[in-house]
Each structure stands twice: as C-alpha cells, then as structure tokens.
C-alpha cells in the first residue's frame, strides 16, 4: 500500500512539475496563433524528455554522479566550461522568467503591480531552498501544481466542437502564418518541453534523495507516466487558447491572456484555481531552476552541494544560488517583460540542448559508470534519433530567430 502511494505521489509530482512558465506561455502563444497544428511537437518533446530524464536518472542512480560532473569529466575543462557558461546563462534566464511568472500570477490575483511582487517571490524561493526539506518541497509544489488540470476542465466546459478541434491536429501551417514562424515555434515548443534544467534537476535530485538502482523502476514509472500526462496538460493549455483566443484574432503576449479561456469556461472559481496552479507551477520551477544553477556550478568545480547538507556544509553552493536570485531580481527590475524573457529562454534551451544530451548519452553506455545498467539497444536507437532531432533544432534555431524576428 505504502509502495503504491509512493508511486502515485511520484507520478502526480511529475505531472505537476512538468508545466512551468515556459510551457504555459509557449503553449498559449502557439494555441492562439497556430491552433493545434503544432501538438505533434509536444508529443516529440515529451518522448524526448522521457528518454533524456530516464537516462540521466539512471546514470545518477547507478553511479551516484549527477549530470554536470559527467559533462566536466567527459568534455574536459575547456569544452566543459563553454557548456557550463551556456547552460548556466540559459538557466539563469529561466530563473528570471519563473520568478517573473510568479509575480505576474500574483498580480492577476491581487492587481498589485508585479514588480512589487518580485522581491517577495525571490525571497520566498530562497527561504524554501534554505530551510525546507527536498522531498517536501518537491511534493508540495508538484501536487499543488496539479490544479493546472483546470485547463482541461475548462476546455470541457467550453464545449468546443471536438471534431473540428481534432481536425486541427494535422501538421499544417495556418493561412496567416509562414513556414518560418511555424518552424520557429515548433523549436520553441520543443525547447519548452525539453528544457535542460529539468535534466540537471532530475539527476541531481536523484542524488539528493539517495536513489540507488533499486529505485530505478519507480523512477521510470514516474517519468514514463507523469511526463506524458504533463504533456497532455500542455496540450490542454494550447487547446484552450485555440478555442477562445484564436477566433478573436488574439495572439498571446501576456499571462493575463493565458488565463482568460479558463475564466471563460470555468468562471471565477476556475480563475482562482488556475492562479493557484500557475503560482505553484512557476514557484516549483523557480526552485528547480535556482537549485539547478547551484548544481551546475558546484558539480563543474567539484564543490560540496546538495540540499541534504546543512547550508554551511555546502557554502559555495548556497552562495551561488543567492547570487543567481539577486541577478534575477536585478534583471526583472529593469522592467523587461517576463513573458518575453520566457519566450527567449525556451528557444535558447533548444539551442543548448545537444551540449547536455550528448555526454549523457555516451556515459549511459559506459559500463564503468553503469555496470549492467547501460542503455539497451532500443534506447540507443531512440537516443540516436533524438540526437539528430536535437541537433537539427539547435542548428536551425538561430537562423529562424533572425528570419522571423523572434517569431513576430
């Protein structure tokens, strides 16, 4: 019984933890502009993150080594540092976006200007990292984030024409868009589903919670069930935007537009629930990204790290996270639009993805680390397919960004 409960908890946490500000914004933008014609990308992205998280989790469980230790070991200091710089900057961008997301959601709830919420949000993030136990932190934000299911509920209450909606699932470029913007948002959506921080966090979390090979089965269940359900949640967000915003000629540029369809379908109660969900999801993601920035730095330089240690026993790790949060506050204080930061962060995530993916793929095949838990043949075949997809997305992203003027 306890075991089943544990599995259920893990799955629910994975669903709630899947969606962050990047998924919320990108899916709503895509839904409002492209309908459901890009849903296939969510499917590709979800399968990719399952594969990637599963491999890095297995590496962490079998060898006790987290992702960035492996990257440094395999790439050496020079390529490793280039990788660290890219990953760290993108992660910092995501931290900024998530904190902005918390503040925007709180503004929607209170009408107090979001800039005033930013220090509050950042302080709360820091406090949780400083004090709260890892597993509690994970489970609470994940479970509360589950309330985002209200997007799916709202979709049903909107009573859309299901046949017409399903008809949109075919990958086609809508009339008012070009093939370039279509491709650009395909990459953005892919990057939103497969953000590298999820992998840093997932593998470091496995070390934090002291996973061993015995936990592999549960880990696999969490990922393979939780992430696809999280992906369905993403699709529900896009579908809501498709039903309410697309016909009105609205293209999403703010968080307030993301929640309008929920209010349309489920009224004030729905609105309240979705705001709780967004705060929980972005707060959870802010925790994960902040921790990830600490993890990447500490693992590259070999510092002591982990929430399972007293802060004083992982001093540089905690200092690094405090600095990251301060930088995030400083960036947001310039008045830069958090939604814009989010849109860029998901694309840059896609650009940087091969840097973390390749070393993990290689180490997952190395018996010195993995003993008998190396990748199977099928996983490797899929792994190579994804390596190609990830490379193509990464290489195409910048030219597409230029051609489309970042998707405008």
């Amino acid at each position, binding site marked *: 019984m306890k075991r089943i409960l544990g599995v259920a908890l893990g799955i629910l946490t994975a669903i709630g933890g899947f969606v962050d500000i990047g998924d919320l914004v990108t899916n709503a933008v895509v839904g409002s502009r492209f309908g459901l014609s890009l849903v296939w990308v969510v499917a590709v992205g979800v399968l990719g993150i399952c594969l990637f998280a599963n491999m890095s989790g297995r590496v962490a469980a079998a060898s006790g080594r987290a992702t960035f230790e492996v990257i440094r070991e395999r790439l050496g200091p020079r390529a490793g540092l280039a990788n660290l710089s890219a990953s760290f900057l993108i992660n910092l961008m995501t931290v900024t976006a998530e904190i902005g997301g918390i503040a925007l959601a709180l503004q929607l709830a209170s009408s107090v200007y979001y800039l005033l919420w930013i220090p509050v949000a950042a302080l709360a993030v820091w406090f949780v990292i400083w004090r709260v136990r890892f597993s509690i932190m994970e489970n609470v934000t994940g479970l509360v984030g589950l309330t985002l299911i209200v997007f799916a509920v709202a979709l049903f209450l909107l009573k859309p024409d299901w046949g017409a909606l399903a008809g949109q699932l075919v990958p086609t470029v809508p009339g008012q868009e070009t093939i370039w913007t279509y491709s650009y948002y395909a990459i953005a959506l892919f990057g939103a589903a497969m953000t590298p921080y999820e992998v840093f966090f997932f593998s470091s979390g496995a070390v934090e919670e002291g996973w061993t090979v015995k936990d592999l089965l549960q880990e696999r269940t969490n990922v393979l069930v939780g992430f696809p359900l999280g992906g369905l949640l993403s699709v529900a967000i896009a579908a809501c935007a498709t039903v309410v915003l697309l016909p009105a000629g609205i293209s999403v540029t703010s968080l307030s537009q993301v929640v309008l369809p929920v209010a349309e379908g489920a009224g004030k109660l729905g609105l309240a629930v979705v705001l709780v969900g967004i705060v929980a999801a972005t707060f959870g993601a802010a925790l994960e990204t902040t921790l990830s920035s600490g993890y990447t730095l500490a693992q590259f330089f070999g510092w002591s790290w982990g929430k399972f*240690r007293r802060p004083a026993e992982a001093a540089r790790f905690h200092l690094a996270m405090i600095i990251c949060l301060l930088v995030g506050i400083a960036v947001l204080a310039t008045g830069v639009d958090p939604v814009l930061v989010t849109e860029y962060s998901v694309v840059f995530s896609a650009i940087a993805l091969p840097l973390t993916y390749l070393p993990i793929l290689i180490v997952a095949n190395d018996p010195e680390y993995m003993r008998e838990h190396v990748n199977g043949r099928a996983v490797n075949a899929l792994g190579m397919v994804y390596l190609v997809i990830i490379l193509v997305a990464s290489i195409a992203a910048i030219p597409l960004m230029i051609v489309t003027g970042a998707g405008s």
Partner: protein
Amino acid sequence: MTSANQQLPIAPPVAGRILDAQVHLMDRQVLDHDGVPVTTVDDLEVSGPDLDAEIPPGTTAPVITALLTGAVLGTRIFGGRPPSSRLIRLPWKDVAEVGVVLRLGIKGEPLDASWVERWVRDKIIARIPGGRHDPR
C-alpha cells in the same frame, strides 16, 4: 595515412592497475574520507623529467606526486601558468581509491583546497540565520 586494418602489438604486461590520466583521473570529482566533495582534479603534478633535456636511457619513469586544483584550472582552460607557489596540491599519498570518483583517506575540511569553501562558510553562509540548520 594508409589505414590497413593491422593490429598494433599489445604493450608488455605490467603488474599494477593501469590509469590513463585523461580517462581516469583528470576532471574527476574528489571526495574526502566522509564522502564530502573537496574539489575536482584540475590537473596532475608529475615528478619529472627535466624539460628540454635529453632523457638518458634507463632513467626511472616519473610518478604522479599530487592532484592539483585552484588557479591551475583557469590556466588549463585559457593557457598560461600560475606560479608553482600558487598551486594547491593534494598529495597522492592521501588518495585512497580511484574509481568513478577519487576518494581521499583524510578529512577534506582542513585542506588548502577547501579554503574558499571555509571562507564563504565562515564569513557569509554561517552568519545567515539557519545556516547551520540540518534540513533532514
């Protein structure tokens, strides 16, 4: 290059375990006696030979004397070289085990390699309320 599929001869067998510096040592995590991370192997110090001097046949082979860390990482990445006095050494005699990580047989806390960690802890982190609170 002709690339005939010729097998190179296998090196004469040796008694001890073989370690390739890049593959097995460099950039690996170093843990102390209690499993606390100390640093990463940023470089290795070798006992010889004299540079740009002919090595007379029969000279005994150099040995690894210490793991290096600190500023040497920067110079390994960007080129150049810190003065020998600035190198932070972890003598090889303190290494207890080489695997996916290197384990030391001593406590990491008092080592030179830990001075930044100690400084950050004593001057900043431990002064914030709850800094010594056990999260578990």
